[in-house]
């Protein structure tokens, strides 16, 4: 490898602790400088990934995100700070990364990662890192990597659980080999439960960064063909074997998927830019309208959150049936009642409404935006969470 870039004296000092490791050394550090990595998502997983890749001296790092820094992000998205609230996440992250290491290039893409732009953005990078939070984008990242022959460093989190792997279809299975189809939206408990221990994406993102660096340096055993399973409560790291699925629709010998598809349709859920907390089709009610209706009519309020959330905020007189129990407890409800269903921000209640409608309930509405919208628009004594 004669065409690797040289390191300046300043870079040699900066990376001296790398240069002292035989597995990295001067040659390895030059490989890192010559490498390029695209990180999809600048949130919980992307934060440690971006910070450690920048610190390690990966020469060119691309960031894709279209969101702005929200107050509730700071519990886990440690690349951002309070001073960056309401600024673009990619801008906020780039600023921090270049402060950490001005010798690297950070390219930002302030746009959702979609079938229209994904190939164009991804083609100039060696490795993709999946730090997204939704199924459509995960399948998109996978398919882009398979079609372009690039490794996909995967990480995913839920509450206290994390998963990580390296999906490289040129050497092993892809994400679709393990998960040929996404779960149908109604069967995704993660939506119903939500929440994550703030440090969990730190653990999983750091593992993703480690795997990406190993791929560049070509050292150790990458997580290709292995899925790592982490549980923070048990403090357990387990591994299972992943094999290439001979019937895989994109990396199998007879692929059906030969170009990018409509991933939102494939997953039955919106990947981005969707109206959060609404059902649509006239099934929603605004917080202000509900306040008026409550004064006039006898409206039954159904809270489908978890019991521990009542300690944060609650509506007087609401009946609590957590979404996970709703199907089994329908007999406690009367379909003749006018009913408004709510949760934190409207996602779980939208699911609850689908369930109620399919069970024959017709006089039901979803509180758009949930109890948080109520706190914002009607009762400012309640906290927003």
């Amino acid at each position, binding site marked *: 490898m004669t065409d690797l870039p040289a390191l300046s004296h300043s870079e040699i000092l900066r990376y001296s602790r790398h240069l002292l490791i035989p597995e990295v050394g001067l040659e390895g550090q030059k490989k890192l400088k010559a490498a390029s990595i695209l990180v999809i998502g600048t949130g919980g*997983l992307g934060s440690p990934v971006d910070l450690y890749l920048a610190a390690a001296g990966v020469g060119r790092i691309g960031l894709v995100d279209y969101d702005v820094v929200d107050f509730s992000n700071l519990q886990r998205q440690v690349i951002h700070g309070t001073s960056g609230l309401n600024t673009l996440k990619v801008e906020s992250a780039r600023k921090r990364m270049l402060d950490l290491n001005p010798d690297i290039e950070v390219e930002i893409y302030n746009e959702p990662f979609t079938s229209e732009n994904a190939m164009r953005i991804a083609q100039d990078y060696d490795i993709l890192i999946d730090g997204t939070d*939704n199924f459509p984008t995960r399948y998109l990242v996978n398919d882009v990597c398979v079609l372009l022959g690039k490794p996909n460093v995967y990480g995913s989190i*839920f*509450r206290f659980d994390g998963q990580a792997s390296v999906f490289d279809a040129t050497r092993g299975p892809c994400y679709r080999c393990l998960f040929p189809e996404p779960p149908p939206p109604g069967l995704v*408990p993660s939506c119903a*439960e939500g929440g994550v221990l703030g440090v969990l994406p730190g653990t999983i993102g750091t593992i993703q960064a480690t795997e990406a660096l190993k791929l560049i340096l070509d050292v150790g055993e990458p997580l290709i063909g292995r899925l790592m399973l982490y549980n923070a409560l048990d403090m357990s790291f387990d591994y*299972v074997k992943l094999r290439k699925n001979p019937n895989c629709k994109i990396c199998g010998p007879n692929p059906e998927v030969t170009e990018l598809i409509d991933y939102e349709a494939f997953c039955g859920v919106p990947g981005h830019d969707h109206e959060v907390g609404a059902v649509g089709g006239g099934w929603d009610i605004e917080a202000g309208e509900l306040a008026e209706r409550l004064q006039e009519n006898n409206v039954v309020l159904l809270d489908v959150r978890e019991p521990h959330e009542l300690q944060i905020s609650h509506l007087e007189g609401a009946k609590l049936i957590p979404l996970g129990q709703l*199907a089994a407890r329908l007999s406690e409800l009367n379909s003749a009642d006018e009913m408004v269903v709510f949760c934190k921000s409207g996602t779980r209640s939208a699911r609850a409404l689908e369930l109620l409608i399919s069970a024959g309930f017709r006089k039901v509405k979803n509180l758009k935006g949930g109890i948080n919208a109520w706190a914002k628009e009607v009762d400012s004594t309640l906290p927003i969470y």
Partner: protein
Amino acid sequence: MPTLKIPTPLRVYADDQSEISVQGDTVAQVLDSMIARYPALSPHLFNGQGELRPFVNLFLGEENVRDLDGLDTPVGEHDRLRLIPSIAGGLFE
């Protein structure tokens, strides 16, 4: 008895149990014994034809039962099974 580890997202349908002892000599029998105890798990694991849903991965030790003999895979007295869920990140709320 073999044990089966239930992933966090599905524990709500299994009385919050993280690991249960199960009975059976095959994967199918083990799953039957689990569903008999926690019927609410059934729609999350099986389709209308009683087959494992494509997004449900059940591992026996380190191996996916799909790479073994599927539901007919024999299960030994001391085997450990685990369900591995498809999680997206899930910060929808």
